[in-house]
């Protein structure tokens, strides 16, 4: 999660705003308690933008700020956004976040900002981009080396940092890629699948649970 903040210039909102429910975490690890002491168990579930194919957030945006790219990502065009916040309501996963104030980084913390990612101004919506800046960087390298982008060239900040390697990122259109393979796994399931949003993120159940 911190990796995500570092990569995507996500501001910290501070205790007062956090208490108002305005903390921004493009990636959150949901935890749910199951059962009571002593037979209690925890369920963890990372939730970020699911990059739905039939994304409810997209059509409701009056200015096309939220739309689908040729690569199948949910692009969020910050400067087209006028802040109706409709997309956030339409999103069943609650993974869209609103800039309630202009973000501030007390100097010299701002020196850490990633120049590949624009800083969002007050009044716009933001969300997980699948580290699109990394994708395009990799594509450019690939082009420079006159080769196709291959599986594993791109890693999102979260996938790269995760010590347990619990997150895998790749191109679903390439049937050979690891993600494609895993998403076909019988253990795989989608979040809120029955809403028909066609999410692109697949969750693998614990071995044995499935």
């Amino acid at each position, binding site marked *: 999660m911190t990796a995500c903040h570092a990569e995507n210039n996500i501001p910290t909102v501070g205790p007062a705003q956090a208490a108002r429910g305005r903390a921004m975490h493009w990636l959150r690890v949901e935890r749910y308690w199951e059962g009571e002491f002593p037979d209690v168990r925890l369920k963890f579930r990372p939730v970020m933008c699911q990059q739905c*194919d*039939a*994304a*409810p*957030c*997209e*059509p409701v*945006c009056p200015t*096309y700020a*939220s*739309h*689908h790219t040729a690569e199948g990502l949910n692009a969020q065009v910050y400067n087209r956004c006028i802040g109706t916040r409709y997309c956030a309501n339409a999103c069943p996963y609650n993974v869209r976040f609103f800039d309630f104030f202009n973000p501030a980084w007390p100097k010299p913390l701002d020196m850490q900002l990633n120049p590949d990612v624009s800083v969002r101004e007050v009044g716009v919506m933001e969300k997980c981009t699948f580290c699109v800046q990394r994708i395009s960087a990799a594509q450019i390298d690939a082009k420079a080396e006159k080769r196709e982008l291959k599986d594993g060239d791109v890693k999102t900040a979260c996938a790269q940092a995760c010590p347990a390697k619990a997150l895998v990122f790749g191109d679903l259109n390439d049937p050979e890629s690891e993600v494609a393979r895993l998403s076909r796994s019988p253990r795989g399931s989608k979040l809120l699948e029955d809403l028909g949003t*066609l999410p692109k993120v697949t969750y693998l159940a614990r071995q044995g649970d499935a």
Partner: protein
Amino acid sequence: MSLYALYRDGHGAQRAVDALRAAGVPDSEITVISAVPMEHFEFGEMNKATRIWYVASGGGLIGFTFGTWLTRMTELAWPLPTGNMPIVAWWPNLIVIFELTMLGAIFATVITLMVAGQLLRRRPALYDPEVTTGEKILVGVEAPRDEKAVERALGDGVKRGGGE
């Protein structure tokens, strides 16, 4: 210049109108002005025929066409896919088209009212404030061909008014 007389009620006005007709003045030249609509008298029914309904429908048609063009053109001009919907999405477009159709009809109606009702017209027209202040009914003829006849028809209290 025009000739007219003021009457206290519809009956007087009706008689004057009949007299004018008798004097050979065609309905189209007779002007009746009242502070309220006079459906209850025969003269109130003069030149009722109107094409305003057709104009309104025409306006609606224009609105419909414009709406269809606007939605389709813009969607094709900036074809961004959203939520797995087609670029030209008819279901939602119909809503916009409907609204524009209605708007067209409404504007057309108002415009015809302005034109056909001879509102906003520049030339000074036959009129007398007593119509409203004194609640009188004005019956008159603009630029009468046979003044004598008209004067006779309107009876006593004939006035000479503005107009051409």
